[in-house]
């Protein structure tokens, strides 16, 4: 290493400090990354200015499934990352805000250089081809093996299983697998819950788009339904919404919890029990109807199904929304009093809220995905859209009815102003699941249920499929037999932690312990790797060639390689190429484009919106010399920023200002002339009554849903907490659990990072009065139990939690105490059952639990837990 490091070592670090920092017990070899095997810690006394002079700021990928993917840069000095910074590439203003990394991105170097990074390929001590002692998965010892041995073993098992049982014995997909006959796919919906197919059928995705960021400032009222961007949409969304507030928008937030978003933005908070939002919405509709507050003209012109006079062709006129709400045929008027017993919102507040949304214009009525991550969550989505449409707030400045879209979420909408180009890697179809609409990997979100050539099961049926040997076929095909022998999780970079992130971990562990072979690649020993047979050490994005990342429509981030791969970690491309050779496949066919060329292609193909605000033009100026220096194929091109400048800057963000030509009012054309601009729905209009939705959901074969919004108590919802609804006597599982997005992590990523464990202790939260009734105190270790499993957690009391509701952050890595069978980490999927619903949405937010004091060994606070350091 360089003189700089020697200088620092000689001057500042005592021998004791050096040894302490380098030992395996160190929480982080944070100032490390010299490449190869020579990780060494450097003392903390690195003078910032001196470091900057000698070092180079490299844009460091923040690549997680968080919605932000902001700008983080790493200061690299002689191959060592000494610290990070965030966006300082331009002056920060509300109109043109810096893309600041969140608390997790700021801890990224502790993540990449953690002492728990997987260093070498490894296998379970008690594994052998066929499985060996399968019951020891998750609790065996690890043996270091060479790459050659690892790849030989993996290829041999894959080959054996394919030849003996066929590709349908393989669960998983990847580029390699898709060239090797494919595998069974897990399909369903996680993040977006029940929203996907609802949007497709009721609106043709019209309501999955929003007005542009600056237009939100035109709203007089913004309703955030179940949305907590302060924790689930880091980056600028909460800051952007604050600007709307400063411009005069009133905020109303509906949530069982009084979240940080409520604290910062809300003028009014509406409490509502989990899974009962539909009842609340129906009562709001009732109030609007009986007081004639709804926009009848809007409904007549732009929707179908609101009342008997405006039904779609072929529909039963009695199945109209208005008569259902009034109770005309079922004898149950959906009054605020009727709703209040269910949702817990006081009737007067329901009336006020309904009046407010009906009479305040323009209004943005927006929902997160959380209330749709419930059993038969379609009912919520139907009700939300219907009530929103009843106010007529569509297609006008400052107005809209929509649901939050992923990364471009919770404050953004409109046009994409800048985007990266494709890598040039052609997509590969999985021969067993040709209809997959989310890359070549998963039948995610809306696998076509009517395609008999799509082989795979709903997320929540995966484990039963493995254990029982059959799964539900879509489109009335009945049970389909299967014999799954291999769980393949070698895919992009860092595993696909579904054993942790999908419902019913206990059943999942049983399933993992049944198959012949489980293989993963990973950067640390996350849950799927913990229960695997062979684990291949993977590189993080910091150790790869480079990538363009995007989180919102206004900026792209161009991340580069920060350091060489740590220890023996490899990219998944390398792994798949090596495996291909052993399987008699041509690696160049699977990866015809090199990583460097892929990165170059994505830069060369990057586009930025033109001056006219409509067309696109190349972003980057690339010279013949650039191409030669990179050693890639390409043509020189003219753009707006030189390649080298873009790499140094690390970000390209299109400036915005009020009155620029980049405003978008979603749905303007449809509203101006619905006949000339019909929506891609059956009727061409917004469908309050949607037979297509009913039919498509029925085709999945899991549950059914009527064509209009109706409240039907969900499995494991509020009603299920009672033994007797009439007397309100509580039953075995009296509390409703919601599995919130939790600050420590981006889903399950970052759970292992010490400063984040310190900042966010993964506390189980209850209302103090509920705790008192059970004799529980702040800080007690409590046992949380559902029908599906048990967890222990430190108890945290707060009046921000609705009585009867409890919360625990989703994503903690399960840590089962082998003696008691109890999870110590608070992995919410230990508690959530794998129940089949709708389009395969996992109904996490309809989960019921019981809570009691735990009399076993109290938990050590998470920040003191030992890291999973293998070698």
């Amino acid at each position, binding site marked *: 290493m360089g003189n700089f490091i020697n200088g620092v070592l000689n001057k500042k670090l005592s021998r004791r*400090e050096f040894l302490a920092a380098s030992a395996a017990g160190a929480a982080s070899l944070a100032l490390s990354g010299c490449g190869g095997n020579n990780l060494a810690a450097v003392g903390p006394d690195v003078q910032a200015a001196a470091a900057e002079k000698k070092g180079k700021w490299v844009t460091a990928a923040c690549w997680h499934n968080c919605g932000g993917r902001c700008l983080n840069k790493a200061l690299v000095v002689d191959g060592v990352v000494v610290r990070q910074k965030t966006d300082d590439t331009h002056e920060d203003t509300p109109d043109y805000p810096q893309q600041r990394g969140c*608390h997790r991105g*700021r801890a990224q170097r502790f993540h990449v250089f953690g002492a728990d990074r997987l260093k070498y390929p490894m296998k379970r001590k008690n594994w052998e081809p066929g499985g060996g002692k399968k019951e020891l998965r998750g609790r065996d010892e690890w043996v270091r093996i060479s790459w050659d041995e690892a790849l030989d073993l993996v290829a041999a098992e894959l080959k054996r299983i394919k030849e003996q049982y066929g590709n349908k014995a393989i669960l998983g997909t990847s580029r390699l697998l898709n060239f090797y006959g494919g595998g069974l796919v897990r399909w369903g919906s996680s993040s977006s819950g029940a929203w996907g197919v609802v949007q497709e059928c009721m609106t043709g995705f019209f309501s999955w788009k929003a007005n542009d960021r600056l237009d939100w400032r035109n709203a007089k009222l913004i309703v955030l339904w179940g949305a907590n961007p302060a924790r689930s949409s880091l980056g600028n969304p909460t*800051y952007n919404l604050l600007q709307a507030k400063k411009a005069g928008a009133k905020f109303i937030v509906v949530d069982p919890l009084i979240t*940080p978003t409520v604290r910062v933005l809300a003028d009014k908070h509406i409490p509502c029990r989990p899974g009962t939002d539909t009842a609340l919405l129906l009562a709001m509709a009732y109030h609007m109807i009986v007081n004639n507050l709804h926009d009848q003209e809007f409904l007549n012109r732009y929707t179908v199904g609101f009342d008997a006079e405006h039904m779609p062709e072929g529909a039963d006129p009695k199945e109209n929304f208005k008569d259902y709400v009034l109770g005309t045929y079922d004898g149950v008027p959906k009054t605020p009093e009727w709703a209040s017993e269910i949702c817990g919102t006081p009737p007067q507040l329901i009336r006020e809220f309904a009046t407010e949304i009906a009479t305040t214009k323009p209004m943005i009525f927006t929902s997160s995905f959380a209330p749709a991550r419930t059993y038969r969550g379609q009912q919520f989505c139907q009700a939300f859209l219907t009530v929103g449409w009843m106010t007529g707030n569509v297609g006008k400045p400052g107005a809209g009815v929509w649901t939050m879209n992923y990364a471009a979420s919770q404050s953004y909408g409109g046009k994409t102003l800048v985007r990266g180009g494709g890598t040039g890697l052609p997509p590969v179809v999985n021969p067993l699941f040709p209809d997959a609409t989310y890359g070549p990997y998963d039948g995610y979100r809306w696998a076509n249920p009517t395609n008999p050539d799509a082989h795979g099961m709903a997320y929540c049926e995966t484990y039963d499929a493995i254990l029982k040997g059959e799964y539900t076929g879509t489109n009335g095909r009945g049970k389909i037999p299967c014999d799954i022998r291999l769980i393949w999780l070698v895919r992009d970079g860092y595993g696909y932690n579904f054993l942790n992130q999908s419902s019913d971990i206990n059943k999942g562990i049983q399933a993992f312990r049944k198959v012949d072979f489980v293989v993963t690649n990973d950067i640390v020993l996350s849950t799927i790797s913990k229960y695997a047979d062979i684990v291949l050490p993977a590189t993080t994005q910091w150790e790869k060639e480079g990538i363009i990342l995007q989180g919102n429509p206004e900026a792209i981030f161009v991340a580069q390689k920060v350091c060489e791969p740590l220890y023996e970690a490899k990219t998944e491309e390398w792994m798949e190429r090596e495996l291909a050779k052993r399987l008699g496949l041509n690696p160049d066919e699977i990866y015809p484009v090199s990583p460097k060329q892929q990165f170059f292609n994505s830069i060369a193909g990057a586009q930025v919106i033109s001056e006219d605000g409509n067309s696109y033009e190349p972003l980057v100026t690339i010279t013949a010399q650039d191409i030669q220096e990179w050693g890639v194929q390409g043509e020189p091109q003219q753009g707006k920023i030189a390649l080298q400048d873009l790499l140094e800057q690390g970000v390209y963000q299109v400036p915005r200002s009020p009155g620029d030509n980049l405003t978008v009012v979603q749905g303007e054309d449809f509203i101006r002339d619905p006949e000339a601009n019909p929506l891609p729905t059956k009727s061409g209009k917004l469908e309050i009554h949607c037979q297509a939705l009913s039919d498509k959901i029925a085709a999945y074969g899991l549950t059914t849903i009527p064509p209009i919004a109706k409240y039907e108590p969900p499995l494991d919802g509020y009603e299920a907490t009672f033994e007797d609804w009439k007397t309100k006597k509580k039953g075995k599982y009296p509390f409703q659990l919601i599995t919130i997005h939790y600050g420590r992590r981006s889903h399950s990523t970052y759970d292992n990072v010490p400063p984040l464990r310190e900042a966010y202790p993964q506390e189980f939260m209850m209302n103090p009065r509920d705790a008192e009734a059970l004799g529980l105190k702040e800080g007690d270790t409590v046992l949380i139990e559902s029908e599906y499993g048990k967890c222990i957690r430190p108890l945290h009391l*707060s009046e921000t939690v*609705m*009585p009867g509701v409890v919360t625990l952050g989703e994503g903690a890595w399960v840590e089962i105490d082998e003696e008691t069978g109890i999870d110590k980490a608070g992995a919410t999927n230990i508690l959530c059952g794998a129940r089949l619903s709708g389009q395969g949405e996992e109904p996490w937010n309809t989960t019921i639990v019981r809570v009691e004091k735990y009399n076993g060994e109290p938990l050590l606070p998470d920040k003191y837990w030992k890291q999973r350091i293998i070698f």
Partner: protein
Amino acid sequence: MGQLGFYFNMVECMGCKACQIACKDKNDLKVGELFRKVLNFECGVYPNVGGFYLSVSCNHCAEAKCVRGCPTGAMHYAEDGTVQHNKDLCIGCRYCVWNCPYSVPQYLEDKNIVGKCDACKDLRDAGENPACVDACPMRTLKFGDLDELKRQYGPDLVSEITVLPLAEVTKPSLLMKANIYALDPSYKLKLKEV
């Protein structure tokens, strides 16, 4: 330049702890060492719950008790008025930990000296802001001349709130935009740190 210090807007703080983590990164701190941290206070009964987040670091007090009580001069004033700590002079006696009414200095056990926020002096000398200031996604933190901060952020800024020591004790160089739960004494007994 006049007295330098931090500005913090609790009204717009969402308690994410980006400031806390950015500070840990910049100062390479271990678990248990926090030069800036975020506290959470609440009061009331669901659904009528108030409260605030409080991001605190060193207040670089004009009459710092840590400087006054330091036997070696390790705690001292820099020319810019901020309170700095000279690691080479520190003997780890922890008088400053005892003296500071805000519990700012922390004893760093494995080094046998204390440590605290230095308002990122090395960054400021290079013309940049403290790490926490540039990290905040809600833009609630600033650092600079107190008079200038007052001019920029309004006349209603305070240097004390009900859960912090009285400003007259050490004259903290701190300006906060506070909400009613932090200002109104009638909430003080109802507030719980959560």
